[in-house]
C-alpha cells in the first residue's frame, strides 16, 4: 500500500474563516462507525453543511456554488480536538488535496500527511491575504508547489515559503508511506528490543 503521489496544483479554494475548527465539526462522532476508509467525504462538516432534516445550509461555503477547488482554507488551530484520522479521510475523500491554515493541531497534521493531504502552514498575514483574495474573487487561483515549498496567490503574485520536513516531502512526492519504511527496518527494531532486556 502506498499513498497517492502529490502533484503540484493550481486551484481555486474554499474558505472557512473560522478559528479552532475541531475534528468533531469536520466529521461528527456519529459517522465514525464505518470500518473502511472510504466515503467519509459525504459527511464532511455534516452539521455545518446540512440542517437536521438533511437540507444543505445555503450560507455554508461548501454549499455555495461560487466556491470550488481542491484547496481548503481554515482559520487558526485547524483540526484541533479528537485524534480521529477520519477527519483527514473526509477532507481528502471530498476532493481536497491541500489544507491551508496559519496554525494546525499536531495530530491532524500528522494524519493529513499520512494520507497524502498536504497541510500548508502560512503566516498570519498571508492567511489574511488569501481570505481577502477569495473575498474579492471567489475563483482566484492559488498555486501550491511542493518541490519548491512555495504557495502563491496568482492574482497578486504574493508568495510564501512553507515548511515540511525533507522526509515527509519525499514521501508525498513519491507516494511512500511510513509503514513501508518501518517494515524495512524491522530487524533493527528487534535488535533494539534485545538491547533493552
Amino acid at each position, binding site marked *: 500500500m502506498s499513498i497517492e503521489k502529490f502533484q503540484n496544483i493550481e486551484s481555486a479554494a474554499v474558505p472557512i474563516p473560522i478559528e*479552532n475548527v475541531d475534528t468533531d465539526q469536520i466529521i461528527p462522532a456519529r459517522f465514525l462507525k464505518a470500518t473502511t476508509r472510504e466515503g467519509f467525504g459525504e459527511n464532511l462538516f455534516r452539521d455545518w453543511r446540512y440542517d437536521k432534516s438533511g437540507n444543505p445550509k445555503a450560507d455554508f461555503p461548501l454549499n455555495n456554488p461560487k466556491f470550488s477547488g481542491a484547496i481548503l482554507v481554515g482559520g487558526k488551530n485547524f483540526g*484541533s480536538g*479528537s485524534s480521529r484520522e477520519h477527519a483527514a479521510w473526509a477532507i481528502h475523500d471530498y476532493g481536497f488535496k491541500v489544507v491551508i491554515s496559519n496554525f494546525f493541531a499536531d*495530530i491532524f497534521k500528522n494524519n493529513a500527511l*499520512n494520507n497524502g493531504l498536504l497541510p500548508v502552514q502560512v503566516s498570519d498575514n498571508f492567511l489574511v491575504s488569501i481570505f481577502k483574495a477569495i473575498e474579492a474573487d471567489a475563483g482566484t487561483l492559488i498555486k501550491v508547489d511542493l518541490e519548491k515549498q512555495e504557495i502563491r496567490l496568482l492574482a497578486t503574485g504574493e508568495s510564501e515559503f512553507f515548511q515540511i520536513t525533507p522526509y515527509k516531502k519525499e514521501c508525498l512526492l513519491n507516494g511512500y508511506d511510513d*509503514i513501508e519504511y*518501518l517494515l524495512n527496518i524491522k530487524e*533493527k*527494531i528487534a535488535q533494539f528490543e534485545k538491547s533493552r532486556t
Partner: protein
Amino acid sequence: MAGKTLFDKIWDAHVVDKIKGGPSVLYIDKHLIHEVTSPQAFAGIDSRGISVFRPEQTVATPDHNVPTVDQHLPIKDELSRFQVNKLTENCEKHGVTLYGLNHPYQGIVHVIGPELGITQPGMTMVCGDSHTSTHGAFGSVAFGIGTSEVEMVLATQCILQPKPKKMRISVEGELSEGVTAKDVILYIIAKITASGGTGYFIEYAGSAIRDLSMEGRMTICNMSIESGARGGLIAPDQTTFDYVKGREFAPKGEEFNQAVEKWRKLKSDDDAVFDKELVFEAADIEPMITYGTNPGMGAKIKDHIPTVEEVDPATRESYKKSLAYMGFEPGSPIEGREVDYVFVGSCTNGRIEDLREVVKFVKGRRKADQVTAWIVPGSKQVEKQANEEGITAALEASGFKLRQPGCSACLAMNDDKIPEGKLAVATSNRNFEGRQGPGSRTMLASPLAAAAAALTGRVTDPRNIN
C-alpha cells in the same frame, strides 16, 4: 551539558533510529486499542499480508460506541454491533488480548489501563484516541495517534514521530476547599488557550500537583490535548508507586521493588531546560466551568462571560459565533443558568474517586426534578466498586441512576445524546458544537460542580452548597 527533562529521558530511551531530516523511530511499550479507530488499521495489515508484530503489547476493549444499558444483550445499533464484532474478530485473528463488553475488566481504555496496572512509569504508550495523555499521570510518555499510526504500531511496535518541544507548568501552593483537579486543568487551559500547548509535551509540577491523588493527576494529564499539547506527564512518586502496587499487571514482589528503584530516577534534572515555563498560584484557582465551544473558553463559576471587548480582536468573530451557538449573552453572569442534563463520567472524571466525590456531596439530598442526571462509571471495576461501597444505592436514593461503563455522552456515539438545544453540565473533556449530540450545549466542570447543578437545577458554585 544541561540536564534532561523527564520527557527527554523517556523519549530518548525509546528512540530506535532517527531519520535524517525527519522524525524519530519511536518504540512503543504499550498500545491500547478500541473499536472505532482500529478496524482500518487491521484491514491495512491484512491487505499487506502481515501479522501483528508484538500482539502481547496491545490490549483492546470496546468503549466508544457501546450502549450503557443492557450490555448483556446484543448491541441494537447495527453499525455499532458490527464495529464491536469487528474488534473481537481482529483480536482473535491476531492474538490480541480483548476485554469484551461483558468482561469484568471492560471499560474506557484510559480508565482500565491504570486500574489494571498496564500503565507504568517510564513507558511509552499510544492509543488511537487523543486522551491517551491520561497515562502521563504515571510518568509515562503517552499520547494519541491516528489510525495510520495504529497500523504502524500493529505492524512494527514503532511509530515515526517528530519530537515535540517541552513545557513545564507548575502550580504552587495549596488548593482551596471545593477546588479539584478538574478546576486546575480548566484554569490552565483558560489561561493558555485551546492552542497554547500545540507543539509541546507538558510536564506538570509544583506542590499543588504533588498533593493530588493519582485520579486527580489523571484528570489533569487527560486534558493536556485540550490545550493542543500532545501529552502531559507528572514525575512518579510514592503516590504513584502506592497506586500501581498490587494491580493485576504490575510487577510483583521483588520485581516491584526493583521497578520502584528505577522509577524513582524518573524526574527532570534540576538544571533541565524547558522550551517554555509557566507558573500558576493554586490560591488563584476557584471552581471553573466553560461557557463556549472550546475547552479554552472557561472561567470561574462566580465570574461573568467575557464581553466582546474583553476578547482579542483577532478572535472576536469566532467568539461571537461560539456564544451564539451556546445562546449566551457576552458579559452575562455564568451562575444561575438553568441546566437540563448532568453527565458524570468519561476518561476525564469517570473513576471511583469522582463517584465518591459526587456521592459525598449529594447524599441525603435529592436532585432537581427537571434535571436528567447520567452517571456513567469508567469501567466494570469502577461499577463494581461503586456497588460495593454503597455509592450506587446512595445515588439512587438521591434520584440519580448509574448506567453501565463506556464513553457514553462524552462523544455521544451511542444513544446517550443530549437533545438539541438542551444545556448539560458535564465532567467530560470537550464542549465542541454538537459534541454531546447534534445541537447539544455543553458546559465542562468538575464532578462537584456537576453534582451541585444536579441538586439545584442551575449552574452553581459547589462552595455555595454546604
